[in-house]
């Protein structure tokens, strides 16, 4: 029996250009053109008509080589960057029909603070080393209008415990933490406001191999416990294999192939995906 899944995030035709842009940028770039640089105006087309739906509670993987536009996609969804064109709708905002990209900066900030969490590859992009570990989690709660110190401390303690940061370190500064522990603080912060959607960009890429496995397990557990929908971006098919239910393969800013992760790994359709799969198998 097929259960109709709720869609928590819909992205339609998201494009992001770095450069002046011309009418032909989108058609002259992409996998077929073999480049993400417009030959006519030299604009970089980092994302080119990206569309997908994120279902509640699922982990959607985005895989592709370096420069294929994965981080740009995530940064646009978190409003770190302004998408050049396209739409993005959250089921929890404006009846799921309002285009988040077209909202005022206040409304976008509301979405970011209440409906999204993000974990960057570099922990220091997401947390501040001169705020305590608890203070970093507090920051996310404060942006979501929680103004009660004991409530903040309780929530921060629970999240840090959940992400296996020793409670004794709650009032210490992450500047002195290992990379793995900084990353776990960043995850705790991203979860603080109970977001329906979590964005993760190469979360294990900078970490030691031994630490990587534990962080991946943690992400999987959190997803199962809390049922948060996650967009997991990685150049590493190994990470995608462990985490993602469905996967999109990106190249030169476009989604080349989309489907169940198992199918993509076992029976890749595109030549590029085949190369990607076989080089890591």
């Amino acid at each position, binding site marked *: 029996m097929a259960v109709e899944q709720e869609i928590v995030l819909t992205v339609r035709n998201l494009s992001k250009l770095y450069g002046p842009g011309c009418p032909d940028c989108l058609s002259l770039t992409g996998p077929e053109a073999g480049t993400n640089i417009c030959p006519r105006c030299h604009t970089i087309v980092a994302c080119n008509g990206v569309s997908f739906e994120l279902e509640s509670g699922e982990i959607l993987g985005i895989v592709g080589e370096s420069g294929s536009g994965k981080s740009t996609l995530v940064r646009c969804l978190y409003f770190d960057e302004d998408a050049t064109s396209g739409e993005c709708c959250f089921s929890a905002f404006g009846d799921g029909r309002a285009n988040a990209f077209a909202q005022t900066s206040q409304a976008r900030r509301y979405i970011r603070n209440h409906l999204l969490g993000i974990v960057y590859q570099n922990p220091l992009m997401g947390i501040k080393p001169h705020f305590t570990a608890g203070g970093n989690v507090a920051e996310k709660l404060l942006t979501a209008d929680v103004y009660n*110190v*004991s409530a903040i401390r309780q929530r921060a303690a629970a999240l840090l415990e959940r992400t296996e940061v020793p409670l004794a370190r709650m009032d210490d500064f992450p500047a002195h933490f290992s990379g793995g522990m900084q990353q776990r603080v960043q995850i705790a912060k991203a979860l603080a406001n109970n977001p329906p959607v979590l964005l993760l960009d190469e979360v294990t890429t900078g970490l030691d191999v031994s630490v990587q496995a534990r962080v991946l397990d943690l992400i999987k557990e959190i997803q199962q416990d809390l049922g948060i929908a996650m967009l997991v971006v990685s150049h590493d098919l190994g990470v995608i294999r462990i985490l993602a239910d469905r996967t999109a393969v990106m190249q030169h800013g476009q989604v080349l192939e989309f489907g169940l992760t198992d199918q993509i790994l076992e029976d890749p359709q595109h030549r590029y995906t085949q190369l990607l799969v076989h080089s890591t198998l």
Partner: protein
Amino acid sequence: MSATVNSAATPARQPRGYNFAFLDENTKREIRRKLLKAVAIPGYQVPFASPELPIARGWGTGGLQITMAIIGPEDVLKVIDQGCDGSVNAVNIRNLLVKTTGVDTTFDTTAASIVQTRHRVPEEPMRADQILVLQVPIPEPLRYVEASEAKTREMHGEMDYSRMWVYLYENIVQYGEISIGARYPSLVNRRYLMDPSPIPRWDVPKLSMSPTLHLFGAGREKRIYAVPPHTLVEPLEFEDFRFRVEEFSGRSCLRCGATDTYMNELFDRVSGQKLYACSDSGYCDKRRAAQERRAD
């Protein structure tokens, strides 16, 4: 009529060689334009040119420039520094203003039409027909948490004060309370975070919903801002860590006996005791004079 004086409102007593209130009329008009903008957007820091004065920048020039721009010959001026009319800075600023305007001065808050102050709001409630001009060293409340001016402007634009809140949270974690004394960050009109200048916490509630116009001037940093009459000023506070004013319970002024004023702590070397006296010297003197009259 002197050629250098182009103000129509030149009193007879004014010495020659200066325009009324030192600054030329165009400069004053420009400052008044910025003041109008500041009043129109309560708590918003308006950049202004901060003209040269015969006083080094940072010694109350921002307040002085505002006072010069708004003062007229009929005004009665009071100048205080840390509550005191007699301190060197207050005397210098008062002398400069009197010399260039010829206005009457007073130590009595209730008798003044303009009060220029550093670090205090007078104890006696001010009225709608009075203006309080505050000298500001650091106009940017977010300077606690962000060094870049471009970033703090963006944070104000977005009303993104979460980092200030984290700063207060960390303060509580570290000290068990919010340890900020003066310069307590406060939200004006539910919109802009403001540095109320280095007044003690004691004075912050006086700014809120007051009938008086409050003008803030930072000469070195070239910023003007305002709390217009009847405007909400809310010190940042948590639900479980409320904003509190300084505690003086059980203490009284050694000069006038007041128990309800902001007090300076004094140390008596002979007895080794801590003593307290009103910081607002004008108010203290007034109370003592009234007590003496009653005793007669």
